[in-house]
Structure formats: C-alpha cells, structure tokens
C-alpha cells in the first residue's frame, strides 16, 4: 500500500498508541484486500457491540482503548444484547448485563452515537451519492452499496472501528466500480418478503463481491431490506444491482426448486413456540403496517418485536406501540433477533419468523428450531 507521510508516521507510533493500532488494522486489512491506499470516509457504522458475540476479550479491549480513543467521524452502532427498559423480565444473568453496559459505556466514551441499530439507512439521512462510508453490519453495507448510492467495503468490526478513529478506510474493490459477472434471475411471481430473503441468501452464496438481480418488477422497501438481510448472512457479497448486467454475464435461475432448497436448509420446524419479528430491526413504516394488520386481533403466543430506540419512540408517538402491545407484542429497543441472548434453547424449542437472517443465526448460534412464515401468514395463523 502507498501511505502518506502522516499515515506512515502514525503506523510507526508517532501519533500515539491508539493511532498506531488503528493504522495497523487499516494497513493489515488493506493489504489483505489488495487496496493500494487509504481514502477518507464520512460515516462509520460499527459491529462488535453485543456481549454475546464479542465476549470478555472484546469487552476488555474496548474498555482499554476507550481511555484514549476518540472517533473522528460520525459513528453509529449495531444492536446490543438487550433493552435496558425491560431486561429484568428476561432472566439474563448479572454478569451479562454488567459486561454489556461496560461495552455501551466504552463506545459512548469514544464519542460513538449509541444508536444500537442494524438499519442506519432507515433512521439517518443518507449522505450525497458516492460518499465513502465504512459499514460493518452486513445488511447495512449491502443496503448502502446497492440502494443508497454510497460506497463501503463489507467491513469487519475492527476495520470499521479503525475507520471511525482515523476517518479513513482501505480503498478495496467494493469502493471501486465493480461490474458483476453473475446475474441471479428471480423466477417467482409475486414474491413475499420471505421469498426476497431467500433470494438474498441464495445470491449471497454465489456472488463474491457483487451480483445482478433480474426478473424483479417493483421491490418495495420491505422486500429490499429482506434481500439485504438474507444476502449478508450467507457469504461475502456486498452489493446487488437490479437488471440483467453486461452481455455474456452468467445467469443462474432462482426458481421454485432453488427456493425450496434454501427453505429446507433453514426451516427445521413445523411450528414455533414464539414469534420474532425484526432482523434487520423493524422501521417505523413496518411498525405502522404491523399495527394496522393487528387491529382487532391478538397473538395466541409470545411475539417479540425488535426495533431501534428512535423508531420505538416515534411508534409510541404515532400510537403504534399501544396497538402492538394490546395485541400481545413485546417491543424491544436497542437489540435484535440476530444473536439475541434473550432466546435460549433451554426454554424455547423453536421460533416462527419471517426473517432469513434471524433464522440463520437463531438456528446456528442459539440452536433453536426454525419455522419460516411470511408476515401475512403469521398474522393470519397466529392471531385471533
């Protein structure tokens, strides 16, 4: 990599230990991804927040560096393990809560906005087209590259943190123009959000950096979000473009059979003991839609609804929260289905969800059975 005099000096430790550490991470990441230089970024979104995933080593590391480190650009944060307002109802042990609060404190000390959200693209204004950002959350990185005209690598927790501290990121392949050499052709009519999630999961397995998605007419916000969530879960692909792509592009069909294969891989149960909605977290529009669908109906089993805190506040002001709670929903801010410590296999055999991302992590990390259903069917079959 070509480094400027400042970057070289920082790497040698002339701007302090934290800058040296941050540049060591950026250079190691850049060399590993064939970047030739570093470029300025305007917004970093960090993963590595949930104590369930980063553990003691992560908590100790963040606590140590937060004594000196400060972020230089706008920096937002992925969900953590629970919602402080109702954590006492979920039987989490004291150690988990204390370690999670320490992680929260460390990020706040460094100047990070405690957004605890995996949908930064829905709760913040999007910068102008072509702006370089560093998003570590996979669904957010894919959304930024594919739908928001921003540029980001699919960052690791560490490269995004180093980018937040330095305001720079490696100029890796995703920041340059990438022309996909693979097209996934959607072969299903009128797909629901579950089908979009499975399409994303399928495409993410095949696409290395970027894919075209053809055969889609009008994908609404919810469908696109499901596509991003599924894609980020199964591989390293960090961008999709709607269309057929360049002539001679390899085309792979996502037909009924391909969808059935994804379904069979992730769906391991005929029914769920409880329902989870939100992975990625629900936005305000989805909260409003759900409140509308539940008018006059009530869930017959527990239903956990995950959203960002700002969305919960807006939903409360709009009257949605009251309607959802009346229908039996438990609304949780600051956390998400994905990698939640609030669902454990000692208490729950299986869950029902419409989220492919949630399904993948609940199955593999929490070890619970998965029953996949689109939201319309969940409301129809699980409420009265």
């Amino acid at each position, binding site marked *: 990599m070509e480094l400027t005099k400042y970057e070289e000096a920082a790497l040698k430790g002339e701007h302090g230990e934290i800058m040296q*550490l941050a540049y*060591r991470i950026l*250079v*190691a990441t850049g060399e590993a*991804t064939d970047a030739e230089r570093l470029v300025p970024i305007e917004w970093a979104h960090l993963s*590595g927040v949930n104590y369930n995933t980063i*553990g003691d*080593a992560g908590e100790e590391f963040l606590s140590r560096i937060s004594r000196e480190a400060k972020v230089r650009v706008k920096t937002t944060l992925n969900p953590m393990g629970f919602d402080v307002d109702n954590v006492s109802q979920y039987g989490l042990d004291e150690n988990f809560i204390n370690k999670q609060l320490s992680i929260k404190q460390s990020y706040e000390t460094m100047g990070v906005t405690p957004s605890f959200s995996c949908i930064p693209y829905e709760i913040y204004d999007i910068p102008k087209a072509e702006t370089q950002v560093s998003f570590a959350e996979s669904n957010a990185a894919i959304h930024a590259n594919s739908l928001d005209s921003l540029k980001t690598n699919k960052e*690791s927790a560490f490269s995004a943190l180093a980018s937040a501290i330095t305001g720079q990121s490696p100029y890796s392949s995703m920041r340059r123009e990438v022309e996909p050499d693979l097209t996934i052709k959607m072969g299903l009519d009128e797909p629901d959000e579950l089908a979009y999630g499975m399409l994303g999961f399928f495409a993410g397995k095949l696409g290395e950096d970027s894919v075209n998605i053809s055969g889609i007419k009008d994908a609404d916000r919810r469908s696109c979000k499901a596509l991003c969530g599924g894609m980020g879960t199964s591989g390293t692909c960090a961008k999709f473009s709607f269309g057929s792509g360049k002539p001679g592009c390899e085309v792979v069909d996502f037909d009924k059979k391909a969808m059935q294969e994804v379904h069979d891989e992730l769906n391991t149960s005929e029914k769920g003991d409880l329902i989870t909605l939100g992975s990625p977290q629900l936005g305000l529009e989805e909260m409003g839609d759900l409140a509308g669908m539940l008018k006059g109906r009530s869930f017959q089993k527990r239903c956990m609804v995950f959203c960002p805190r700002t969305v919960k506040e807006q939903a409360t002001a709009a009257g949605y929260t009251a309607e959802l709670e009346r229908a039996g929903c438990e609304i949780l801010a600051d956390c998400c289905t994905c990698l939640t410590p609030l669902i454990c296999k000692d208490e729950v055999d299986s869950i029902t969800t419409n989220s492919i991302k949630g399904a993948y992590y609940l199955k593999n990390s929490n070890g619970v059975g998965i029953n996949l259903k689109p939201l319309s069917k969940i409301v129809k079959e699980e409420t009265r």
Partner: protein
Amino acid sequence: MKKVLVRGSAQGVVLKSNDPINFLGTVDKKTGVITDKNHDIYAKPVGGTMLVFPSGVGSSVGAYTIYSIKSNGSAPAAMICTKPDLTVATGCALADIPLLIISEEEFTSIKTGQHISLDTDSEDVIIIQ
C-alpha cells in the same frame, strides 16, 4: 515472501500446520493450546512460536482470541500464512504480532523445528536456519 500485513521483527522456532486455523473455536484463549482433536497440531501450544499455517478461517471475532492470547503471554512471536484473511490480519494488527504472506513454494520448504528470524524492515525479511 509476497506481502507484509503487519510489520515488526521476531525470531523463534517454527510450528507448522497444514490445516487452516479457526482461532475462535480451536485455540484456548488463555494457554494458546490447540484444542481441536481433528487439527494436525492438536494439543500443541502456539506461544512463542513462529506459527506457519495456510490461513485463518471462521468468525472475525477470532481476532479477539489472538488479542487474548497475546494479553495472556501465550501468543506466537509471528505468524506466516499463504493466504491473507481478515480474521488473522486484524487479530495480528490488534495484538501487534508480525504477519507475513508467503508463496506456496516457500510454505512447502518450511518445516517444524526450523529457526526463523523475521524483520520486515530488513532487506531479507525472512532468514530460515
């Protein structure tokens, strides 16, 4: 030698594995001992060695395992791989452990028990004795 991912200097005795290493699942974060029975360097401690292996695999959180073994004094003196991966790259960057990428031919020629001196600022970078 193909690339320097993390700069530095170190020397020590080679511990070579032909299997990729998943730091999150297979390395004890206190002792640095390989705990996976199916791994070709099972039960060996990586501490103080020049650890030579194809690449890292598995969750990027494995980078914190590398940071932990360093904090516990049981990290390798340096790591040498044939394929760059982000988990080992960021782990070595966090823990300030020199990390080199070498060619397949060089990898084949290195054997467990050899002594290696490494200095990314010198002309030779690697000297195998």
